[in-house]
């Protein structure tokens, strides 16, 4: 096969390229240039592109750079900023996967005659008990990234390869070391690529939107503190709320951007029996029908969080009502919520947590 492998300059995608090559595929590496602004982190800095190119040279494959910075602004950065204005907690890396890696890039790959797009994600694509291909948990549970690639659906499942999903991280690094790849010991990237380590989220957003101060009130409506930027406040947060020291722990339990009001309360108030999920992508269009019958699922709502039992029901407006088996901490609106089958192996679909 002719495979286009997305190379971030990290060890996983380096080894992904090497594995494909060893399997006899015709491999071309590509690094997407996504963020045109200032940054010192993440996966699209010039030195990361250098690493990707040098690994490609070492493997003897061609390496391309595609400039998708306009698309990245439109689909990732602008929505990230807007979400904060609306009091949401967005997940830009997932939107990048949705719109850039597994849409824009795969569309380009098809146009250029490639048979598949590969990436270094720790996830697999396997056939489930019902004969459907699905994003599947990685062999390395601790590194599993099926959550961040949950939106791969339909035909895209046939077009996507995750060559390192069947390897542990340790095996990946050992492979890179054995091949003498310069990325063998490179640390995993942790941060949002367009947010600088020095300035952080506050500095990034501060240059783009006016921050609004907000009062911090308890559940009875008494003013307890004040924040300078309601846009930076997240459900469940308990620091930086201007509260006096020594008092019992209080958590953000509500963010009302219209009224510029942050509500705090005891941890117990963070727990809820249900939530609603919008913009849901199902791996297969028939999944929604099946879920109307068998609605027991496991729900994961952060990159490395536990998958928790719940019952889901699809409403007429296509949002999904999640009813937890046991009460759970509330998921911040804007976060991605992914549904797994009860064996906790296959991704059924996923969407975005709604404000109540």
């Amino acid at each position, binding site marked *: 096969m002719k495979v286009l492998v997305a190379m971030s300059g990290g060890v996983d995608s380096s080894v992904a390229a090497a594995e494909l090559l060893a399997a006899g595929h015709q491999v071309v590496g590509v*690094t997407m*240039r996504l963020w045109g602004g200032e940054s010192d982190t993440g996966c*699209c800095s*010039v030195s990361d*592109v250098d690493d990707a*190119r040098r690994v490609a040279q070492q493997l003897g494959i061609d390496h*391309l*750079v*595609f*400039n998708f*910075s306009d698309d990245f602004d439109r689909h990732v950065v602008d929505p990230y900023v807007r979400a904060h204005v609306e009091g949401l907690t967005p997940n830009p890396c997932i939107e990048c996967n949705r719109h850039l890696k597994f849409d824009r890039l795969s569309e*380009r790959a*098809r*146009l*250029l005659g490639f048979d598949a797009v590969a990436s270094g994600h720790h996830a697999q694509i396997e056939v489930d008990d019902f004969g459907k291909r699905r994003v599947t948990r990685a062999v390395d549970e601790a590194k599993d990234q099926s959550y961040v690639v949950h939106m791969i659906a339909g035909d895209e499942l046939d077009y996507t390869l995750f060559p390192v999903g069947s390897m542990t991280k340790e095996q990946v690094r050992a492979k890179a070391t054995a091949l003498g790849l310069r990325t063998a010991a490179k640390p995993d990237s942790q941060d949002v690529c367009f947010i600088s380590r020095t300035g952080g989220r506050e500095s990034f957003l501060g240059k783009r939107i006016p921050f609004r101060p907000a009062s911090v009130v308890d559940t009875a409506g008494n003013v307890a503190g004040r924040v300078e930027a309601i846009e930076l406040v997240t459900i469940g947060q308990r620091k930086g709320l201007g509260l006096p020291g020594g008092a019992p722990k209080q958590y953000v339990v509500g963010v009302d951007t219209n009224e510029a009001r942050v509500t705090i309360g005891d941890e117990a108030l963070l727990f809820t029996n249900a939530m609603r999920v919008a913009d849901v992508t199902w791996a297969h269009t028939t999944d929604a029908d099946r879920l109307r019958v068998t609605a027991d699922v496991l729900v994961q709502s952060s990159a490395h969080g536990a998958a928790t039992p719940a019952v889901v029901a699809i409403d007429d407006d296509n949002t999904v009502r999640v009813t937890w088996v046991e009460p759970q901490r509330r998921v911040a609106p804007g976060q991605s919520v992914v549904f797994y089958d009860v064996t906790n192996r296959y991704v059924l679909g996923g969407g975005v947590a709604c404000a109540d």
Partner: protein
Amino acid sequence: MRPEAIEVMRPYLDGMYANPAGAHRFARQARQAIDEARDEIAAVLGCAAGEVIFTGGGTEADNAAILGAVRRSGGVAVCPAAEHHAVLHCVEHVSGVVVGTDQFGAVDMAALERVLTDESIDVSVVSVMAVNNEVGTITPLREVSRLVRKHRPDALLHSDAVQAACWLDLREVTSLVDSLSLSSHKFGGPKGVGVLTMRAGRHVEPLILGGGQERDRRSGTHNVAGIVATARALAITDTERPSEVARLDVLGARLSSGITAAIDDAITTVPRERRVPGVVHMCFPGVENEALLFLLDESDVCASAASACASGAMEPSHVLAAMGVERALAHGALRMSIGHSTTDADIDRAIDVVVAAVRHLRSR
């Protein structure tokens, strides 16, 4: 590189390796090679040998002229918006004035004149490229020169002539300006060697200080082999220029008409009479040039689209933006360059490959 240029540089990488600034017989050999190269280049440029300064490339030559002028006299640097970044970024760096261009990327004369007649702007250097590197447009330098001399006789008039060497009579360019820059690899010489001319009586602050080479105008040990090869390549370019211009003018026109004949909405960015023969620039609506370049590369046709950033990604062209070309259309820009090694058969193949690639990308 031109084989003749490779040939003449070889001895200076091997037996005649001395530093020309030395005081021994071998140094004198190297020194003589540089003196002769300088004479040869001065003859092509129609200037005095003392007006030729060797640099480490065209970018350095542009930097030396613009930053050097501002450092010497203060004042404001002026250039058009479609200049090469070697000029544009210098002018921006010293908070200079960037003037607009016409629809083909040549400086807007009326806008330039407005700046030159604005008494609140203390213009110390005006830099206008002779030929645009991206779209091939020839600047009416005579008119630029007339305006600058009329309104700002004391300002340094510099021209980035890097893209002009193969196509324009450099004697004429030299006669119209105070300083110009050349880059050796644009005419078949080695990379990393440039030429800056500086008209006698004009002075700029040197960019690079050190041992005082090049009459204190550019320090650093001479790249003897590179300089010798540069002179050879430029001399051959100058000799062959009239016949090559005529030959490539026909080939370039055939390339663009061959493509437009098959793809009727292809846009020829600059008409033949406004551009040099060596640059054929086109835009294909609805096509993304990153994808197009990949397909051309697969078929062994090497072209470009715009300048690349440090990561190697293609940047949206500032030249096309200055010309008023919409961003969406600029994404479909293709720059094809032809030169002394281009044959008739190459043109046929390029037409076939470009047409097939554009059709393929549009079929999806």
